[in-house]
């Protein structure tokens, strides 16, 4: 059903070497419009490195194209308008008000005098509403709980209104309800026309929300397809070293890891 959607990002043979070793090894992938893609894999598989390379936050070889244009040829601000990146950890280093933090998402759209345009205000308001953080707008980010921080961090990334959103462990350290809220938000962001790539450790969330799952191991993509295919028990045994079963929830199959192998 996604076949007709436009390809927003196309990466070919992306390789990242850190200290001589290939942390990301010859990875090719594409992201299409209206698609939520989960990137899963064991710790140290190279997921974050791949995501940072795709966002051009680290040097890599190979080619990355956005809407058919090489990423390297874009100016920093153009790239920033095309790809919004939500790093892991939801870190805020300074006690700024939530509204000001979310407004940072508009930085790539700012003119030389950093004036706020009506479009900026609308985008910030929309991001606050989508993440249910409106009532936090005047609070300082450093005083928020983990769940609130995660939503504010996501609001900041959404405010850019970039066609491509990268989210590195957006659900880490969140309680079940907030995990679901964040995943629903990411799915909505995809349905509104963008492409979302999310690194997830929770295979259940990946299976339930992602349109497509890419499994990464040892710097390579070892599986790429529908959640039920990519996350089948044999695959999980090989990549994660766990004995897993597929359980029918009534809303589809989700993998459950039962014990380490």
């Amino acid at each position, binding site marked *: 059903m996604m076949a007709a959607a436009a390809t927003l990002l196309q990466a070919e043979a992306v390789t990242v070497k850190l200290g001589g070793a290939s942390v990301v090894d010859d990875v090719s992938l594409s992201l299409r419009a209206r698609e939520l893609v989960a990137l899963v894999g064991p710790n140290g598989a190279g997921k974050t490195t791949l995501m940072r390379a795709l966002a051009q936050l680290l040097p890599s070889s190979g080619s990355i194209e956005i809407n058919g244009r090489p990423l390297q040829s874009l100016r920093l601000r153009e790239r920033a308008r095309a790809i919004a990146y939500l790093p892991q950890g939801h870190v805020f280093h300074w006690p700024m008000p939530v509204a000001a933090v979310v407004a*940072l998402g508009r930085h790539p759209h700012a003119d030389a005098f950093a004036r706020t345009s009506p479009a900026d205000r609308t985008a910030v308001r929309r991001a606050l509403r989508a993440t249910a953080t409106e009532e936090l707008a005047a609070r300082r980010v450093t005083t928020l709980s983990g769940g609130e921080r995660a939503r504010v961090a996501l609001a900041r990334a959404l405010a850019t209104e970039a066609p491509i959103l990268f989210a590195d462990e957006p659900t880490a350290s969140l309680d079940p309800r907030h995990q679901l809220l964040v995943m629903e938000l990411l799915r909505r962001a995809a349905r509104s026309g963008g492409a979302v790539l999310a690194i997830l450790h929770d295979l259940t969330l990946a299976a339930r929300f992602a349109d497509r799952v890419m499994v990464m191991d040892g710097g390579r993509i070892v599986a790429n397809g529908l959640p039920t295919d990519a996350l089948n028990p044999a695959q999980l045994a090989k990549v994660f070293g766990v004995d897993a079963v597929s359980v029918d929830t009534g809303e589809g199959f989700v993998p459950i890891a039962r014990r380490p192998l």
Partner: protein
Amino acid sequence: MAALVDGDGIPGIIVRDIRLPRTLLAGLIGATFGLTGAALQGLLRNPLAEPALFGAPQAAAACASLVIAFGLAGATSFAVPLAGIAGTLVAIGSLLAIAGRRASLTVTMLAGLALASFGGAAIALILNLAPNPHVALEIAFWLLGSLQDRSYDHLAIALPFMIGSWVMLGMTAGAFRALTLGEDAAASLGVNINRTRQAVVVGTAFGIGACVAIAGAISFVGLVAPHLVRRAVGSDPARGMLPAALTGAALVLAADIGVRLVPGPVEIKLGVVTAMIGVPFFLAMIFSERRLLEGNPAS
């Protein structure tokens, strides 16, 4: 006031040629310290950042006193601020190189401590090797920080470098706001991290190098000024820069007026006053923010 505008004779000379350049220098130097402090705090995302904690003034003083001690140039030549700028560049550059991209609080502070100590040791070595005791005494007094007997010549030497510093630091202000999200997020928002770092390093070097070359070591203004305005600007690291500069100017002006008015056989040096007020303030700040600092070991 009348003496300033059209006074002839002694009052006119005193106000125009002695008081006025001293006042202007105090304001400009204070503003530069306030601005560099705010910029370093923004770059390192750390409210305790201060040029003096990273050995910048010490390094500037070491290089400048080297030039003075060995008579390489007169005290009012461009060679002194240039030496100061070179020293600061080395100090802040090494700090950023050692502390690395993540700029963790602990590593930054340790590296800064080492660099400050090294700057101090270099000054001691120069005093040690000074060709005669008069030169050593001259350097020792100059190191205490003072604006006594500074003239328009000093102003003319320092001003171009200060203006360069303000321009470079002012241009980076927008990046500091994005940097509160961390370097990766800031870079993803289109901030050129390397250029921001370079601008802050070179801008700080120009400013601190010029200030120290003219007035000796004046510490803690760069730490205190941004902190005093932080609440008023809603903790926005970019919006705090101009108020921090103005507050720095007010602080150094007040301290300099203070040292002139306090009666006594010798004038207390400006740098001594700022340190005497600044250190207790610094300790109080650590005390009030220690929970925050302890709770954030990795960043």
